[in-house]
């Protein structure tokens, strides 16, 4: 956990006061909607189809039990009793009133939570690996650096009115769970030959209308230069990013148009002037931030305690265990993923009651800590293996133990046309239909790891380009149609999916997905060859033949 001090709390309180004033001026007419919109967006407030929507940041995916409980409170008091976890380590409340927003924000600010910069043309919530400080794979806790960037970017006076939004993601593990290659800036923390920490810097990745994989512009940026280098990137982008066309305003277009080399040269030139200035992170500053992260005091435990071994005799528990538990860096502990994908329910949604249950369990078993991943599931990063049977029983009772993590029914979906003012087609009911089609979890396990991503429009909040199977909703003559891509992936081997064939109607989607899966089962060399590897080996043609031509 990161502990806010009085500076952070003061700033949050001032922000709430400012927003209260802005809402007041909007309601009185002193601010026009055009003037107010960027201000509300920078506080995470959208106007959607049916109501205002509040997006609240979960910086680097870390939440305390108290914070999650407060979200449950906000869901109950100001919304309709549930929230939606997004692909960017945020939570959204869908039915909130503008008049009540300042109160809801004040309630959140009391526990150090806010919607600052979860929207708007500014540096957004910095995301990272939901397994930070728990996985044995990482070289350092990436949240330290995400927090340094969070502070640096919060209300940055120079970079709050950028050409377009700006998303930064960090991984400190070779296996990338933060999708850094499809962010405006992706940072991979690693050590050089001398053992020093630094970042590989990628720039210009992103999804949306014009998807790109990020391009490397630096192999090794010593960590002390993180802020000056980012400032140089931002300054080049702020001045030279396109502002004439909203669809060409992201940094990826600038990088694409002038080339990564020319872009990098501009950044280096700018960086040269500021690298040794006030932004240089000295050891004291880094140590200070590091000291604010409170880590669990782990007990000395052994792996595979008798409670666990015994529970694994129960087939239901064992199934859940294999799906939901990952290796922890400390013996006797585990990383537990809480599936928010019960078959047939909206992906990523949790009720206020479920949030309370998870907060209670985190308090009792998990050092009060909860994480949120871009797959729209939650995670208890530090649980003792001996407590897993009790945790499972409690999660199961709350509908939170669906053993489908990473399976075909663990679908990533944006809110789509059921909520979103930008959407062209629905996403959630499509996910529900597909999940129901694969409701037999034995069958889903036989298929293996398969990520299905659904977006209700080209803005790609469901990250469809990087789904193993990607589904994009489009509109044709007033009807919903869906384009299917296969072979995308969001990890360290990130790549964009390839279009499989003509778009199909809403009703046809589950059949089509089933045929793709059947084709894979027929084409794979053995059950250990994952879907995405079969596509990589064979390309899309054999899939196309089997999926389209038989029908």
């Amino acid at each position, binding site marked *: 956990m990161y502990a806010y001090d009085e500076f952070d709390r003061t700033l949050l309180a001032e922000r709430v006061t400012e927003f209260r004033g802005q809402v007041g001026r909007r309601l009185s007419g002193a601010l026009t909607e055009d003037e107010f919109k960027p201000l509300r967006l920078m506080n995470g407030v959208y106007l959607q189809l049916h109501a205002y929507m509040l997006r609240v940041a979960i910086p680097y995916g870390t939440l305390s039990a108290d914070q999650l409980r407060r979200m449950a409170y906000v869901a109950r008091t100001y919304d309709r009793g549930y929230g939606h976890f997004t692909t960017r380590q945020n939570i959204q409340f869908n039915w909130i009133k503008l008049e009540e927003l300042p109160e809801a924000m004040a309630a959140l600010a009391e526990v150090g939570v806010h919607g600052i910069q979860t929207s708007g043309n500014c540096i957004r919530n910095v995301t990272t690996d939901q397994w930070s400080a728990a996985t044995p794979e990482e070289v350092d806790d990436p949240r330290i650096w995400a927090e340094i960037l969070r502070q640096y970017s919060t209300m940055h006076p*120079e970079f709050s009115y950028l050409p377009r939004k700006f998303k930064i993601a960090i991984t400190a593990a070779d296996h990338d769970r933060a999708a850094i290659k499809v962010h405006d800036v992706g940072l991979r923390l690693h050590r050089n030959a001398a053992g020093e920490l630094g970042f590989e810097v990628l720039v210009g990745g992103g999804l949306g209308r014009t998807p790109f994989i990020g391009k490397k512009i630096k192999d090794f940026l010593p960590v002390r230069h993180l802020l000056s280098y980012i400032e140089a990137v931002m300054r080049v982008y702020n001045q030279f990013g396109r502002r004439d066309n909203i669809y060409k305003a992201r940094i990826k277009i600038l990088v694409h148009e002038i080339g990564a080399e020319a872009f990098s040269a501009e950044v280096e030139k700018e960086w040269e002037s500021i690298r040794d200035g006030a932004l240089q992170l000295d050891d004291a500053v880094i140590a200070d931030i590091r000291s604010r992260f409170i880590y669990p005091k782990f007990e000395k435990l052994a792996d595979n305690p008798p409670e666990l071994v015994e529970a694994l005799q129960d087939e239901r528990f064992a199934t859940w265990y294999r799906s939901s538990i990952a290796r922890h860096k400390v013996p006797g502990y585990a990383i537990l993923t809480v599936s928010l994908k019960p078959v047939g329910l909206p992906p990523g949604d949790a009720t206020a009651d479920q949030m309370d249950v998870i907060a209670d369990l985190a308090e009792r078993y998990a050092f009060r800590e909860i994480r949120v991943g871009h797959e729209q599931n939650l995670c208890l990063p530090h649980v003792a293996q001996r407590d897993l049977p009790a945790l499972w029983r409690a999660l199961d009772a709350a509908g939170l133990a669906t053993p489908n993590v990473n399976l075909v029914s663990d679908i990533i979906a944006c809110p789509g046309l059921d909520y979103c003012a930008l959407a062209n087609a629905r996403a959630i009911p499509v996910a529900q239909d597909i999940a129901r089609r694969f409701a037999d979890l034995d069958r889903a396990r036989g298929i293996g790891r398969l990520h299905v991503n659904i977006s209700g429009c080209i803005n790609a909040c469901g990250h469809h380009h990087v789904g193993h199977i990607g589904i994009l909703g489009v509109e044709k003559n007033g009807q919903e149609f869906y384009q299917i891509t296969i072979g995308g992936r969001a990890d360290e081997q990130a790549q964009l999916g390839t279009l499989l064939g003509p778009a199909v109607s809403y009703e046809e989607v589950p059949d089509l997905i089933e045929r793709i899966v059947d084709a894979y089962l027929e084409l794979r060399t053995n059950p250990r060859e994952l879907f995405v590897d079969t596509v990589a080996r064979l390309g899309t043609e054999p899939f196309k033949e089997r999926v389209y031509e038989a029908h």
Partner: protein
Amino acid sequence: MKLIENGHVIADRYVRVADDEALPEGAPVLVSADRLLREGAELARRGAPVGVVWPNNRRIEAIEPYLDQLALIALVFPTFRDGRAYSQARLLRERFDWQGPLRATGNVLRDQFLYMSRAGFDQLEATKDADADAYVDELKSYTAFYQPTGDGRPTILRARLGRVAEAPAQAEAAE
């Protein structure tokens, strides 16, 4: 439209002169960047102050050779959503050491006053009169700042150093 300088409403002494207009004798003038670049030598010999309106789509580096002869630099926000002039302002103050008045013009609204001040603007041409009256309140709306700019305000990162990080009760209880 009210012009604010460091919190006070002041009269604008400068006359904006179009590129094809003759310069009024003895009066402080604001000319375009084009005119400055074209007639720089003549403008330097003028007896009265010369300021420039520098557009936000021209590299600010090009102004450097003229800084000594300028009495005012005005930057432009065509809409408040277009933030290029913030970068230009910081570069003028922090890179080129511009000490003279730096004016924000265009769509200048109270919700951005503090950002402008932090970027180095000390004159604001407020679009709405009511906004100008709120200047003092706006500048006081925040007392804590995370990141350094050239404005001299202390930053949270530095202010924390030397102090012991609080260990909140709730986190300890978990251990």
